[in-house]
């Protein structure tokens, strides 16, 4: 394992609720290699955002607990770090951009101050150098008239501009890993195209890895090198982007890809996945997807399938690919 890689091993996250502990992330293992873009896809409530927040240690205890698992960065477990140690990593080694650029920027601070903030925290830098750097960052995210923007407040900017500013803040300290949580979901399609193009260019310039969290398979296909598909707190399939889109193996991934309306294919009944996403914690044993699966077998109700490697680098959590089980069936 490379020193700069991030590795999540068997991560479990539980929230304490009125009805006891509810497990929202169950045995998630991921590896993000230096320079790659890993897409984490899934529908709302599947646990993709809390997984990302766990890396940044943004979930307080209580209500969140980590009964198992570790998040290894530069050989150390982030889950064991103190708040002080974490604040040296946050925004410096690992930084994050969020979905809503309006709510994640401070409305009463000028853009320039918000970019400089992380510089002052992480670097020994004087005011003049910080301003230089902030202006450079504004230029880097392709915003024209940097002096004017430096003095603006967030409400004076459009949605796309605000997301550019968010990216500038996130990249100000040259992080090794950028976590992007649905960064283009709130944006219009032409603005989304601008931001995605910018992210691709910047990634080449700064040589960082990206963990790209989204529900949009179109964005994944365009941005990512590898994909992990999450369902109900678990990763059900992981592999190279070309592999996943060309031959998805897990019934959930297959159903998901089939149910996207495609441009040019009009009318007709769209294949869909029956039923609904189960509430976290309601399915205690067996496969979480069994009630919606077209290939459900008897064993799926009793036992939980393991995360098996079915081809080089392509993993899937489904009994359909277990030779033992399929021999018996």
């Amino acid at each position, binding site marked *: 394992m490379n020193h700069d890689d991030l590795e999540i091993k068997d991560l479990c996250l539980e929230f304490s609720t009125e009805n006891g502990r509810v497990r929202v992330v169950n045995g998630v293992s991921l590896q993000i290699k230096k320079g790659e873009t890993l897409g984490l896809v899934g*529908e709302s409530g599947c646990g993709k955002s809390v997984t990302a927040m766990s890396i940044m240690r943004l979930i307080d205890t209580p209500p969140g607990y980590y009964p198992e698992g570790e998040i290894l960065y530069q050989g150390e477990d982030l889950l064991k770090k103190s708040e002080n140690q974490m604040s040296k990593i946050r925004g410096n080694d690992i930084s994050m951009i969020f979905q809503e650029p309006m709510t994640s920027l401070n409305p009463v601070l000028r853009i320039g101050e918000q970019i400089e903030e992380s510089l002052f925290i992480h670097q020994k830098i004087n005011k003049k150098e910080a301003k230089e750097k902030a202006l450079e960052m504004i230029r880097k995210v392709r915003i024209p008239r940097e002096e004017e923007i430096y003095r603006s407040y967030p409400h004076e900017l459009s949605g796309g501009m605000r997301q550019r500013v968010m990216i500038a803040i996130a990249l100000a300290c040259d992080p090794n890993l950028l976590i992007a949580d649905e960064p283009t979901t709130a944006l219009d399609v*032409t603005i989304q195209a*601008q931001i*995605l*193009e910018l992210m691709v260019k910047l990634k080449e310039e700064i040589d960082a890895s990206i963990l790209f969290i989204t529900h949009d398979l179109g964005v994944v296909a365009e941005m*990512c090198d590898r994909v992990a598909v999450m369902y109900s707190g678990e990763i059900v399939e992981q592999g190279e982007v070309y592999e996943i889109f060309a031959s998805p193996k897990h019934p959930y991934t297959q159903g998901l890809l089939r149910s*996207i309306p495609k441009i040019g294919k009009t009318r007709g009944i*769209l294949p869909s996945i029956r039923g609904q996403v189960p509430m976290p914690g309601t399915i205690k044993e067996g496969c979480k997807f069994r009630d919606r699966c077209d290939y459900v077998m008897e064993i799926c109700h009793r036992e939980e399938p393991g995360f098996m490697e079915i081809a080089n680098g392509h993993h899937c959590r489904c009994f359909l690919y277990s030779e033992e089980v399929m021999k018996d069936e």
Partner: protein
Amino acid sequence: MSNPLVAVKNVKKYFPVYGGILNKEVGQVKAVDGVSLSIQEGETFGLVGESGCGKSTMGKVLLSLVEPTEGEVIINGSNWTKVKGRDLISLKKDAQIVFQDPYSSLNPRMKIIDILMEPLNAHKIGTKKERIALVEGIMEKVGLNRKQIYRYPHEFSGGQRQRIGVARALILNPKLIVLDEAVSALDVSIQSQILNLLIQLQDDFNLTYLFISHDLSVISHICDRVGVMYLGHLMEVADVSTLYEKPLHPYTLSLLEAVPVPDPTKRRKKKVLEGDVPSPSNPPKGCVFSTRCPRVMEVCREKRPPLVHLAEREIACHLYPGGLEENRPGHKLLDENALSENHQGAIVVEDKKAAIEGGSR
């Protein structure tokens, strides 16, 4: 062609902007600025555009939920803009709406039966017994259990709530349903369920849909005809296959090119549209798209192009001033590079050339 079910004639909706110490009117937001369209019975007409383009306002004007500043809306032979009071209410039975957010569009304190009975009560349809029977019937039509009518909205998932929203629109047996981003808040696997339901209901009840969405893939799947809106104006109107296979308007082209395709083998260098949508309170003087258009000409900044018929479509663009000559003499292209770049790499552009050649024959 037979009489259309819906005819919208030159509708404008300006919202006043108040400001200053005396709170005087200081300007206007031109949400919809002269839109004309017609929808045939049994057809699904898609209205697509980015946020703030006026597509939702258009839907609300259509249903008389907001009064237009100017223009006429004729639905099923009656002029909705001329009728007032009780007469208008009785007309409204014919046209219903489904909203985007299934969480905020259902009253959390009302049981499903009360939510679904409300339209029946308002229009005084049937006895109480008949109303309950209608509610139970409609629940099954939208794929829910009739026993669930005594539950509250929070007991349902997002997809089920949207089914309730559809049931509420359907219960008065309307001719037209306006679907305002009706599937946008749903996850893909649920979205496809609702789209299938809508298609099936349309066949069963011979419904006409106005489908408002920002999602070009969904529009492509469900619509027969599509209008592309930008800053309160219709840019291009055509059959869904014409629009997606041979888009002509530079904005339609850019919009289609910006959609991420769920296929990594189709990654390509895109011509990304620069800049932001201008403010509708201060739209550009000429063509509203001229500030971002990759093929902008001098005339575009001066004169607003009218929506004209062109073979099987309607288009508002100076590149196609009623005829098909691509570069009319005197209309110098301002940015030749943008044009040539636009012609490289994009598959759609090839089709477009073919369309121009085919059309001029």
